[in-house]
């Protein structure tokens, strides 16, 4: 039976309309996966010797940090790890045991990148431990325990995923403990480190994680099974409609009409809400680069400058017109030229970018030159990147199902790795331009070049828009066909 499910999965993967466009992304993802794999591998092999060199007992030190490692893993999972959805509804009435369906959905998660990536750290690390003469039984028990914890996290993610914004709670907990430790008030890792060390010292302790992971499996299994009803986990949550009166936007004509619609789109769908929430986080991206004590290469500052104001542009703009995919046919038959539709989206991006720039004014505390960097980044975003995302949109053929992000089995991931990957080309040009300025030892020249390019883009936007419009027109039919296919 599992084999049949795998067959279905494979077919749905191969036959989705977005397969072609996704392939390039998938290759990029593959590179990313290899990159992380290598890093983890290097860490696994190298950690022992590096720690030894620092005169630390390697295993004890690793155990000390495991607390943060596992918590960080959970937070990452909550944000990134998608819940694997077998297309369940058609299977419900077939001659298949419910248990089989649930077991399969759970076992599928075992193959997730988020689980096996850890093996690349723990396995080599354990091998090195063995080679260095650590107790064989102890090391084996310890490694097994680690895998139990990783899989415990896996199941926790499946259960907890239903609760909104939980990752923020975990994030706060970790930050608080880290802060307490940093200021020498309370060191949680003293306790957790000893705890994890026990698996090596007394292998019998392995029972604890084994029990935990089994209990979690049973619990997750029950949870999913109970929710295997059309009016439970497979149902869409209904909420009471709230009407917003946004008629003050009417004064902006057609653009106002679309803005009204886009605001409702963002406010009423979980997926878009989370996306916009992510874009707020971008505002603080500059802290990594600009804080005193952070020694980043200067040329990367412009990177941060682009990101700070560009959060919305990258996470929302990137998916124009997919946001409208569920009613794209309506848009195409209504009394609106493409120009108007694109213009409205462009204005939305520009307005939010401008607002972000104003909000980012707190960077002035770090120094005017940093804020200048952000303003220049914003000019570039408005002039060039806003049009680049719209142009990219002509080729975005992945429908976004706004309504499906509910219920226990729904794919709730609003945040998408591919969105992040697409941003890379939009950042290279300004970095290069700024680099040219730095090459001549003139920072301001660099900034001027970036800003001028942005202004040029803004000046020629009518030309660019005509070009973008023609691309949308040629892609129109295949876009409609792709959006019609519900994922």
């Amino acid at each position, binding site marked *: 039976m599992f084999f049949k499910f795998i067959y279905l999965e494979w077919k749905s993967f191969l036959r989705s309309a977005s397969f072609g466009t996704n392939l390039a992304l998938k290759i990029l993802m593959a590179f990313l996966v290899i990159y992380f794999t290598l890093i983890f591998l290097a860490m696994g092999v190298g950690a022992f010797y590096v720690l030894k060199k620092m005169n630390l007992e390697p295993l004890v030190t690793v155990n000390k940090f495991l607390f943060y490692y596992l918590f960080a893993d959970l937070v990452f999972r909550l944000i990134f790890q998608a819940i694997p959805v077998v297309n369940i509804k058609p299977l419900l009435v077939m001659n298949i045991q419910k248990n089989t369906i649930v077991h399969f959905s759970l076992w599928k998660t075992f193959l997730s990148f988020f689980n096996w990536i850890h093996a690349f750290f723990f396995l080599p690390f354990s091998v090195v431990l063995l080679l260095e003469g650590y107790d064989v039984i102890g090391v084996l028990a310890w490694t097994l325990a680690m895998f139990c914890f990783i899989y415990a996290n896996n199941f926790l993610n499946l259960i907890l995923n239903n609760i909104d914004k939980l990752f923020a709670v975990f994030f706060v907990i970790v930050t608080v403990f880290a802060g307490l430790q940093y200021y020498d008030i309370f060191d949680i890792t003293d306790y957790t480190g000893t705890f994890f060390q026990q698996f090596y010292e007394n292998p019998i302790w392995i029972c604890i994680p084994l029990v935990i992971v089994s209990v979690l499996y049973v619990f997750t299994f029950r949870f999913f099974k109970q929710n295997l009803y059309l009016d439970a986990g497979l149902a869409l949550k209904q909420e*009471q*409609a709230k009407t917003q009166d946004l008629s003050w936007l009417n004064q902006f004509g057609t653009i106002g009409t679309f803005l009204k*619609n886009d605001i*409702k789109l963002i406010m009423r769908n979980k997926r878009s809400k989370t996306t916009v929430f992510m874009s707020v986080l971008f505002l603080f991206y500059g802290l990594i680069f600009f804080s005193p004590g952070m020694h980043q290469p200067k040329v990367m500052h412009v990177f941060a400058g682009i990101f700070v104001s560009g959060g919305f542009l990258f996470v929302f703009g990137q998916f124009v017109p997919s946001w409208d995919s569920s009613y794209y046919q*309506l848009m195409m*038959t209504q009394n609106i030229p493409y120009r108007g539709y694109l213009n409205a989206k462009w204005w939305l991006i520009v307005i939010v970018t401008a607002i972000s720039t104003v909000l980012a004014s707190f960077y002035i505390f770090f120094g005017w030159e940093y804020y200048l960097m952000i303003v220049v980044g914003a000019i570039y975003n408005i002039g060039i990147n806003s049009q680049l995302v719209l142009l990219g949109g002509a080729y975005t053929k992945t429908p976004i199902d706004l309504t499906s992000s509910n219920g226990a089995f729904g794919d709730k991931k609003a945040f998408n790795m591919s969105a992040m990957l697409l941003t890379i080309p939009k950042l290279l040009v300004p970095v290069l331009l700024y680099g040219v300025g730095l090459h001549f030892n003139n920072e301001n020249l660099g900034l001027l070049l970036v800003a001028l390019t942005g202004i040029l883009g803004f000046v020629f936007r009518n030309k660019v828009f005509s070009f973008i419009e023609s691309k949308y027109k040629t892609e129109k039919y295949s876009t*409609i066909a792709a*959006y019609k296919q519900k994922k």
Partner: protein
Amino acid sequence: MIQVQNLSKSYNGNIVLKIDNLEIPKGQSFGLVGNNGAGKTTFFSLLLDLIRPTTGFVNNNGVQVNTDESWKSFTGSFLDENFLIGYLTPEEYFYFIGDLHGQNKADVDALLNDYVEFFNGEILNNKKYLRDLSKGNQKKVGIIATLIGRPEVVILDEPFANLDPTTVNRLKKIIKKLAENPDVTVLVSSHDLQHTVEVCDRIVALNKGEIVKDIQTSTETLQELEVFFAV
């Protein structure tokens, strides 16, 4: 009002629609009947420039639909729920369409007022988003939304499907009234021969993508069609 020239659509060499010549005069109420896969929805999608014709073209009031977009200002259409914006309430959806046709709230409200009976108290002021309405109620919203902005061409794909008997009768009344207006051309497709014959002046039957019957409705039409579609 609508001229079709040499229109065909094929997928990988399979011809799914082939209409050499079809002319729908202004004010006509035009019914399209046929079995599943006969090409009804394909034809309407071509009319609305939602798919690209393999050959030929459609003229809507002198506007060639795949090269010029101005037909959108006088054409109202509803094919399926892909035309609805799920996260809006019905009212907001109507106002949105109204905005696009330069109709303000009061205009739209006045229009909706005529269809209170059709909505049967299940649509307006119900505090529900469109995505949470039943299929039938969604259809009601979609159909009435096509009438916003006094369109000269109204295109409805399978309007009778999924509706309860009472609503079907009310809808027939609405379409008939619409068809009485000499400025409005109505295009309706359906599997249901009786409903179509009742509301349309002219019936065209499609089979495997080709026009096999083209008749002005009379008392014998229903019988003729039933004979044609009999097994």
